[in-house]
């Protein structure tokens, strides 16, 4: 498993060159935006249950066949497995966001996930849709672009310092896209 710092080191080692000069710029920005990153991770972990349950519910609402007899979220035992998987995916994304590198997500979550889902008969299209809903919820919470209109009764604004966190929103979004790309 690597983080933003060890990733730089591993690629420098491949060239047997020390890390210096321009390589340090991205690491300095990681350090500078450190608190923002921790707030972003906190936004995901604090709302994990809400993000996951909303995503799975949304996925089912869009395709109610899933909870009819023969559907992949029927009976509750299989929907529970679905909720569990949503939480696992979100957890590895939160690790990747904390580390600033996707290797933990790739190695421990996505490696072989598609093959497993195909073997178990899980519809990857629906799974990808649930991840996409998680993406829009999580990025809205990190960027504080969620609104009472879109959140409804579950609307919640994270109480963090105001500022520009578009880079972190984009980075978090890229990890969700990575999951979608890996399973579809």
């Amino acid at each position, binding site marked *: 498993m690597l*983080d933003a710092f060890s990733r730089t080191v591993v690629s420098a080692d491949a060239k047997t060159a020390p890390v210096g000069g321009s390589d340090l710029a991205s690491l300095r920005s990681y350090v500078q935006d450190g608190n923002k990153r921790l707030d972003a991770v906190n936004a995901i972990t604090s709302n994990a249950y809400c993000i996951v349950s909303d995503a799975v519910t949304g996925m089912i609402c869009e395709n109610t066949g899933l909870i009819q007899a023969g559907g992949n979220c029927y009976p509750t035992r299989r929907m529970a497995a679905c909720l569990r998987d949503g939480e696992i995916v979100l957890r590895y994304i939160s690790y990747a966001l904390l580390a600033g590198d996707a290797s933990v997500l790739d190695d421990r979550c996505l490696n072989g996930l598609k093959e497993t889902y195909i073997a178990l008969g899980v519809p990857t299209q629906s799974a990808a849709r649930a991840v996409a809903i998680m993406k829009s919820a999580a990025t809205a919470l990190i960027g504080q672009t969620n609104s009472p209109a879109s959140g409804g009764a579950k609307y919640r604004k994270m109480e963090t310092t105001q500022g520009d966190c578009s880079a972190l929103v984009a980075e978090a979004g890229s990890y969700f896209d990575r999951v979608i790309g890996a399973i579809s």
Partner: protein
Amino acid sequence: MKSVVTTVVTAADAAGRFPSQNDLEAVQGNIQRAAARLEAAEKLAAGLDNVTREAGDACFNKYAYLRQPGEAGDSQVKVDKCYRDLGHYLRLINYCLIVGGTGPLDEWGIAGAREVYRTLGLPTNAYIEALTYTRDRACAPRDMSPQALNEFKSYLDYAINALS
């Protein structure tokens, strides 16, 4: 690669939980010290060749017998390899300063070093002398800020202790 973040994530993953408030605080502590580490890494990278040369010279000055026939540095090729190895150690220290942990030195420098040096009949004293010279030669604020120097020296000491 062992670092604060990967340690925290490994522990959280083993327990199957999201990063907790404790984990975030641990990472925050690491980030707070990062500025000094990155400064030390930058200065070391910029002067790596000079530092390596001075360290190698110091070692051959103290152990002049190494250049005699039959010893570890009896030809220019062997001497060059000694300087190359010192450069490797300093480069790994540069990596440790970036990562904020001893992972790179442990994995790429120290693991197996004892066996290799014994097989090749190389004296580790010479390496210790070179790294000790580097440690004592470095000074603040000429080379880097005091806090950065402190980080740099702690990894030098780590390498020295591992070779001792």
